[in-house]
């Protein structure tokens, strides 16, 4: 038995066989893909379901009174049911969007423009992806709503003292916060944050783009008002994402985009809106991609989040231990509850050089500020290299990363 298959709970070698791209070579080296936090690779079953849909069952949804359209609508709405079960939500609470970014913009333009009033405030943390910062800056500028930033500690955790300060005047009406930092790997204590925000009269949007990949998310148990994620990080296709919103909230929100499928009735003078979730799905949706996302969720749940979480913990512990042993390497963030994302700097070697020299060895990592530029500044760095793990990542790949870093250091010595 190899080291890779000895991980508890998860047969990584068997899982790897489901991902055709992992057999590819890069620069004549076996691919070591450590960039799953940017976008995950796709299992064969997702590609097959999408191809089969287009080969056998494809037509527009909710429109045709013909057999193909009915079957395709069944499959598309089946994907919505699948997502609803995945999050422990009702199907009417699941809005299909392009990605987490679009979901946050949707909430900002609808909830933000109607439920929030000038003088109210939105709070975000210092460790948000630009997707959960820029839409709120735009709302601030359009509506006279204040944007407040909750500090993170040097370890990379939410500073609860600062959170209390930010909420003290009770003007914050929405806390928009990540469930897992895409740079620090920190998991935020969502239940505690929700209890705190609700007690202060604020609602909570959680950016689950990273967390939903690694941990079971139960929106009822968490108590969140909105939860967003992207399909492509969850081993599904690009172009499909999910907005969960509590039913009463979605019902109170106006449409985001106008067009077909989101209306009740239309005359030249005016239109009425469909009920959620259709009110927020104008135009032909990403039909094949939604069905692909459903297949990805089936695939993930068959593996099981207990096994996935154990695998992530073992890999993360191994990575933190192995990388910490490299002289000159500094890991950014040190949260107690952290997952499979490790951003680091190397003394006197720029992150771009690190990424290129690892790439030459077949190792794919990301370098830059990872769409969290203010967070990089918070930690006093311009850019970092980032290794991130998925269900197909092995311990030996992390050892290859460590060896690769030692080799590239020689180029700069």
């Amino acid at each position, binding site marked *: 038995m190899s080291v890779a298959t000895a991980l508890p709970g998860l047969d990584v070698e068997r899982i790897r066989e489901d991902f055709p791209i992992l057999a590819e070579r890069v*620069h*004549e080296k076996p691919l070591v893909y450590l960039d799953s936090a940017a976008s995950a690779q796709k299992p064969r079953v997702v590609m097959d379901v999408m191809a089969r849909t287009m080969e056998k069952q494809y037509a527009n949804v909710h429109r045709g009174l013909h057999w193909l359209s009915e079957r395709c609508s069944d499959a598309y709405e089946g994907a919505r049911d699948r997502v609803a079960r995945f999050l422990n939500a009702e199907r009417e609470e699941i809005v299909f969007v392009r990605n987490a970014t679009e979901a946050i913009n949707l909430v900002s333009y609808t909830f933000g423009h109607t439920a929030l009033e000038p003088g109210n405030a939105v709070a975000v943390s210092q460790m948000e992806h630009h997707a959960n910062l820029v839409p709120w800056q735009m709302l601030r500028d359009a509506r006279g709503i204040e944007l407040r930033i909750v500090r993170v500690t040097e370890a990379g955790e939410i500073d609860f003292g600062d959170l209390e300060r930010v909420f003290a005047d009770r003007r914050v009406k929405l806390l928009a916060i990540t469930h897992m930092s895409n740079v620090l790997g920190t998991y935020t204590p969502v239940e505690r944050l929700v209890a705190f925000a609700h007690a202060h009269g604020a609602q909570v949007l959680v950016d689950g783009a990273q967390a939903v990949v690694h941990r079971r998310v139960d929106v009822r148990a968490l108590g969140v008002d909105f939860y967003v994620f992207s399909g492509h990080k969850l081993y599904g296709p690009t172009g499909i994402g999910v907005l969960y919103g509590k039913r009463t909230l979605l019902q109170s929100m106006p449409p985001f985009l106008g067009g077909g499928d989101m209306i009740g009735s239309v005359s030249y003078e005016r239109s009425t809106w469909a009920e959620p979730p259709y009110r927020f799905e104008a135009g032909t949706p990403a039909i094949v991609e939604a069905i692909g996302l459903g297949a990805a969720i089936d695939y993930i749940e068959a593996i099981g989040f207990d096994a996935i979480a154990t695998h992530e913990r073992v890999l993360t512990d191994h990575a933190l231990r192995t990388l910490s042993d490299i002289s000159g390497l500094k890991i950014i963030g040190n949260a107690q509850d952290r997952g499979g994302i490790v951003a680091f700097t190397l003394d006197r*070697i*720029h*992150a*771009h*050089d690190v990424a*290129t*020299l690892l790439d*030459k*060895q077949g190792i794919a990592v990301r*370098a*830059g*500020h990872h769409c969290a*530029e203010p967070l*990089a500044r918070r930690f006093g760095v*311009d*850019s970092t290299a980032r290794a991130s793990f998925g269900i197909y990542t092995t311990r030996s790949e992390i050892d290859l990363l460590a060896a*690769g870093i030692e*080799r*590239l250091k020689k*180029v*700069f010595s």
Partner: protein
Amino acid sequence: MEDTVEDLYQQLIMERARAPHYAGRLVRIDGEAEGDNPMCGDQVHVMFASGDGDVVQEFAHQTRGCAICIASADLLGDVVLGRHLDEITSTVDAFEEMIRTGTRPTRSEFDKLAAFAGVHAYRSRRRCATLAWQAARSAIIRMMEAHHG
């Protein structure tokens, strides 16, 4: 890795990244410009002195960035010293063309600059190589405008 890395991290690039010849500030500055790449935080500041004429007499740069970025800012110094401003802009054009196409120009000043031709294969790194050169072009155009009004 040592053999496959040569096309990008050539010895000349590594030498000039480790110990740049022109890093620092000029006392007298007749033209300067800054460039930055917000994607990675790379920043470059290029400075020229040409007295009252059109020939560059002194050059310096302050660069914060990766090895490619620092080395390309420094090798810029080798090709601008003692040369006319309008000649320099044509070299800058040729350098950018080389990064864009991967093809080395035949001009003699590219004997050394050809070290950067390999950057072409790395779309995400092309900006690292051209940052200082783009800043140099803006500085030189402003100097020419100032001289010839």
